[in-house]
């Protein structure tokens, strides 16, 4: 099938974002309208007068994609038209500046499927911290330094916020698990009302990893339990992706420049232990491991 995001866009080599878009659109099909906030998607896919989009697409502002999509859905509803309405947005526009609009859209119950590709910082403007940036990450506004291990705060738990809005379908996904992501998009479409899917989407420049390893990095996030894959239906945990072999967080951290300081600084090992505890807590909370697999720590 023809890809609905045409090749020839200007995303970085190794960027996971176009892959996320194509997986989402493959699952949603051409009967889809996409709203996108300001960010990498816009600047890499729509330099006027060009466009990489083969579905109708709109960008308005940085913080209003959810409200724009609300209006689209309202208009379609009024005209009796039946198209999928999607937002595809980064984490800064979702968890930070767009929070009011997305809360309003969830609250009003619009039939809009919101996909956040989470690269865990403001990448389009040069890797500044967002509220989705994990702890101990070095960004340009939370750099590691002589007295700093980088970002001091945990990730804002956006899926939980969506669940708290009684969004009927909430899921996490990963670019490394395309079948799982596609299935979740299809499930989101099958359930009327808003949906929220947050996709782990590594950024080659912001995370600083070897070109060609994007999917491996994303898979490590899942296998270390730092990025649990789960879905909530009507507020209940409805499914998790179990881990066969749980990897230590070091395997994930070592592969990326944004955590390099943890392996060089005094006290870095203690911070890695804290991150390991977070991963273990995810494993426990979501039941990510098969019984008896908890102690597995080596590679595949």
């Amino acid at each position: 099938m023809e890809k609905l995001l045409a090749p020839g866009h200007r995303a970085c080599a190794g960027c996971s974002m176009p892959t996320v878009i194509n997986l989402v659109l493959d699952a949603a099909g051409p009967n889809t309208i996409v709203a996108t906030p300001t960010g990498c998607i816009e600047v890499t896919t729509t330099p006027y007068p060009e466009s990489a989009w083969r579905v109708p697409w709109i960008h308005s502002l940085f913080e209003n994609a959810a409200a724009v999509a609300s209006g689209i859905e309202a208009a379609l509803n009024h005209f009796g038209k039946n198209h999928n309405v999607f937002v595809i947005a980064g984490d800064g526009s979702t968890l930070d500046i767009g929070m009011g609009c997305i809360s309003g859209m969830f609250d009003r119950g619009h039939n809009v499927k919101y996909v956040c590709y989470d690269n865990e910082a403001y990448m389009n403007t040069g890797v500044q911290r967002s509220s989705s940036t994990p702890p101990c990450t070095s960004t340009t506004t939370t750099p590691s330094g002589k007295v700093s291990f980088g970002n001091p705060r945990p990730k804002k738990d956006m899926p939980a916020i969506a669940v708290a809005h009684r969004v009927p379908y909430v899921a996490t996904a990963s670019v490394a698990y395309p079948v799982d992501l596609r299935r979740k998009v299809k499930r989101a479409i099958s359930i009327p009302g808003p949906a929220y899917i947050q996709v782990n989407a590594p950024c080659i420049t912001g995370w600083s990893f070897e070109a060609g390893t994007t999917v491996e990095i994303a898979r490590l996030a899942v296998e270390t339990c730092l990025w649990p894959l789960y879905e909530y239906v009507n507020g209940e945990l409805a499914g998790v992706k179990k881990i066969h072999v749980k990897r230590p967080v070091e395997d994930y951290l070592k592969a990326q420049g944004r955590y390099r300081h943890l392996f060089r600084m005094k006290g870095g090992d203690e911070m890695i232990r804290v991150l390991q505890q977070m991963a273990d807590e995810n494993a426990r909370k979501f039941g990510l491991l098969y019984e008896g697999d908890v102690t597995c720590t080596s590679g595949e």
Partner: protein
Amino acid sequence: MIAKEEMSLKERMARMKVVEGSYAVAHAVKCCAPDVISAYPITPQTHIVEHLSQFVADGELDSEFLTVDSEFSAMSSLVGASAAGARCYSSTTSQGLALMWEVLYNAAGMRLPIVMTVANRALSAPLNIWNDQQDSVGARDSGWIQLYAEDVQEAADAIPQAYKIAEDPEILTPVMVCMDGFILTHVYEPVELMSAEEVERFLPPYRPEHILDPNNPKTFGAFADPSYFTELRYMQWDAHRRALNKIETVAREFAEQFGRWYGGLIDTYHADDAEVMIVTMGSVIGTIKDCIDMMRSEGLKVGLVKIRSYRPFPTEALRKALKDAEVVAVIEKDVTVGNEGALLTDLKAALYNTPARVPVIGFPAGLGGRDITVRDIRRVVDKAIAARDRGIEAEMEFLSLREDLL
């Protein structure tokens, strides 16, 4: 202007109802049958959307009514709805308009023909819910067409006109209809309420050429680098230039069908032989007209120019109307802190490259809802005559400052 289908005064009186200003506006909106309305409560615009929501609740109006989380979302949702092909309406005021600021530019730049009522109100700090026009005047450069209403009937009648202007394929520009908060929104006046059938004859259905449609996918809101941006701005600017004619034409068409005329870009009152001309916009015009009647009976040759379209700015019309004046006084409900009244600056600029060297002075007045009285207007005229006879002492002066507070 005379109505084509001329009605007797008796017939027109029979059509009149005493209604609240907000109701008259909401009724006019209902007759235009918008597909999507978004609403966020803020005084003094709230009654407009309350009336609209009641129409929807009673099944009198088939619109999607979005109760949004902020004015920012109100305008953003209309951007989406308009791009999806919907006729859209919202209303706001003051801080709400300020919160929309970013989206105002966006809606205009994306050439979306949204219509919005602004119930003019002061901007804080200090917090003040009463009328002046600082809010919409502050949004004058956002790319929206701005029409100002003198009374309730005009504010209501401007709605179908606004859609007709905005949706014209040659214009495709959002329109803000500004009416003074409380003074017009909350007053009860006898109003001729239009009917949906009449509006249907006046306003063609909205059939946009470019919409978000999976059967014909288009990209909206691409980014433009320096090699394209200027031309896109130029096209917006050019649409405003075309709107100068369109606003006039639509006003005439409205007058022909409905028998009500408020001027095109501007209107005048006792202007032909006037030596002293007052230029202003909004509801203070009623007071000024009464005052002119009184002064005329005393032999003072005073006239009025009412600005109906502030953007696009009616430069040529103003030059023509003011060419024989001996002095011009601007009364406006705003002030540019650090300079002078916005209308004063605009008017002086319009007159500068003309042979006329008429003295122009300005008076910010009625800020934060303070009454503008007949005595105030007389003071303006006295100062204008003094400026004519003895030269300008102060180019701009706050009207009737309370010295005890300073």
